[in-house]
């Protein structure tokens, strides 16, 4: 059963998966090519490299977000297109089908993750680093995998959510923004921004999106 679901999901999402894999492979290599080759670079240039690695690193959580978004939506695209008739005709409980879809999506997620890992490894092997500077290909790949899974889970759940759930989610987001607008309009002194507080909670450990924050540089101290 899993194989069939995976196959169906692959057929629906192969183009984004391949594109994401190419991007994921290329991104760590950009760290190496950003300002020349590290292999023969004198130590004087290490500072530039660290800066370049940080700048490229900023793009990696963005790629994780894109990966989660595209694969999360693609996981349910065939069902939405077929008005869920195929799923209803299957002799499995709904929860099992959701689990299968999630597992298949997570399997496809492994393609860009592995591509990023290979890219990071190639980039690492192509340079010689001076004392005090290290490469983090494994940590970067694992972190990218975790960030992609979080983003995938979010968009996977949103894609299959009921209209009511979608409305509630939108209502909560709208409410937060409205609260901020009201606070701003009333010019209440010392009032904290609701949006900023929510963002802080979400993006600071143990917030679910904290994985997208922090440092993502392949080469760092």
């Amino acid at each position, binding site marked *: 059963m899993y194989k069939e679901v995976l196959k169906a999901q692959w057929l629906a999402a192969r183009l984004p998966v391949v594109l994401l894999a190419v991007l994921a492979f290329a991104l760590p290599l950009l760290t190496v090519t950003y300002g020349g080759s590290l292999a023969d670079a*004198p*130590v*004087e*240039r*290490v*500072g530039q490299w*660290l*800066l370049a690695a*940080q700048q490229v*690193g900023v793009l990696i959580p963005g790629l994780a977000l894109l990966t989660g978004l595209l694969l999360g939506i693609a996981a349910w695209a065939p069902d939405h297109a077929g008005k*869920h008739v195929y*799923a*209803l005709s299957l002799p499995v409980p*709904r*929860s099992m089908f*959701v*689990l299968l879809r*999630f597992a298949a999506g997570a399997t496809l997620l492994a393609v860009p993750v592995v591509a990023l890992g290979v890219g990071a490894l190639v980039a690492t092997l192509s340079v010689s680093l*001076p*004392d*005090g*500077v290290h490469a*983090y290909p*494994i*940590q*970067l*790949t*694992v*972190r990218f995998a*975790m*960030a992609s*899974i*979080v983003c995938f*889970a*979010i968009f*996977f*759940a949103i894609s*299959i*959510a*009921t*209209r009511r*759930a979608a409305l509630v989610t939108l209502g909560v987001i709208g409410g937060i923004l409205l609260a901020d607008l009201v606070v701003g309009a009333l010019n209440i*002194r*010392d009032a904290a921004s609701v949006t900023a507080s929510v963002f802080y909670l979400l993006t600071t*450990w*143990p*917030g*679910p999106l*904290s*994985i997208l924050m*922090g*440092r*993502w*540089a*392949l080469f*760092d*101290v």
Partner: protein
Amino acid sequence: MYRAVLALIALTVSVGAPSAAAQGAPGRSSVRALAARADSLEALVARQDSAAKRTRYDELRAQRFDAGDVTVLIPAVVGEGTGRRIAAGAEAYLDSMGGIPPAFVRSVVSIAYATAGSDSVLRAGGLGGRRRLMVDVPARPDTFADGWAVAIVIARAYTESLNEEWRAWLPADLGIGWKHGREDAAAVRDLAAGETRVGTECLGGRPAACRLWLGLDREPDAYVARYTPAEIRRIVALRPLVEYLGPTAARCIEGSDEECLRFARGGQLPAVPAGFSALRSMLREIRVLHGAEALRRALSDTAGALGQRLAGAAGISEDSLVVEWRAWLLTGGGHPPVSAGAREAMPVLLFGGLLLLAAARSGRWR
């Protein structure tokens, strides 16, 4: 004068008015009426002016806020909540850095610019004898509101109170508000920039080079010990508008080593090759690994070279200190920059599981 102008305006308006024009030139009685109206307007303007001044003064009237040893005077218009936050924030910043004796913090009072009536507030509070430090509202008002600007002013005042050697070496802010991940990266970039041989060798792990790069030893000629003429030449050549730096710089660029050293000794080049980020990182390292008391001891010490003072306060040798600092700096304060362990995995698994559960329990086919 004011009255005359008002009368003139009133006269002009009346002359220009169609009704007045129809009646011809104004008579003596109407001029008197206009003058009386101008009088009343003048009184009204004076009253309003006085009320506005009173309101303005009330807004700027000094309000005192205390947090620990920190005392600040801030205009009332800033608000009580913000005032308390500024004082508490300044105390937290000073506390997080350490190094400044509490007695010094108690001997000063920070006053925001434009605060009115601070004398009476200080006298009433028995603080008339305190040294007053003026705090400007910086370009980023949030740094004022969180107390950073106040803490920096106190730190600068303390730095200025130290002996000449410390004043020349210390970053004026003492590293207050140090941010991991940003400032330590800047310090590493500074070290890795490789402008000097001693910096490159320090990055490579030679303690003596680190001491030279950080300017911790007393040198008879700091420029000779810490720079080579070729390095000075390269630094000078990369300066903007180099052609306007004078004949010494020109001769240095042309190849005269002696002129390069003369140019540097003329105050045109910092005696310490390390930038402020690196110097801040040294202070921060001592604070983190050896405590605020060690930093305080070091800063109050006036005997020996700076490296001896810092190492003595930390209770280790100078070489051990720079080795420790280098390792601390290059590992981002002991934390790997890119982390992906159990700590990061926990919220991911928890949140992913919750979303999967939510997706399994509700859906469009129910």
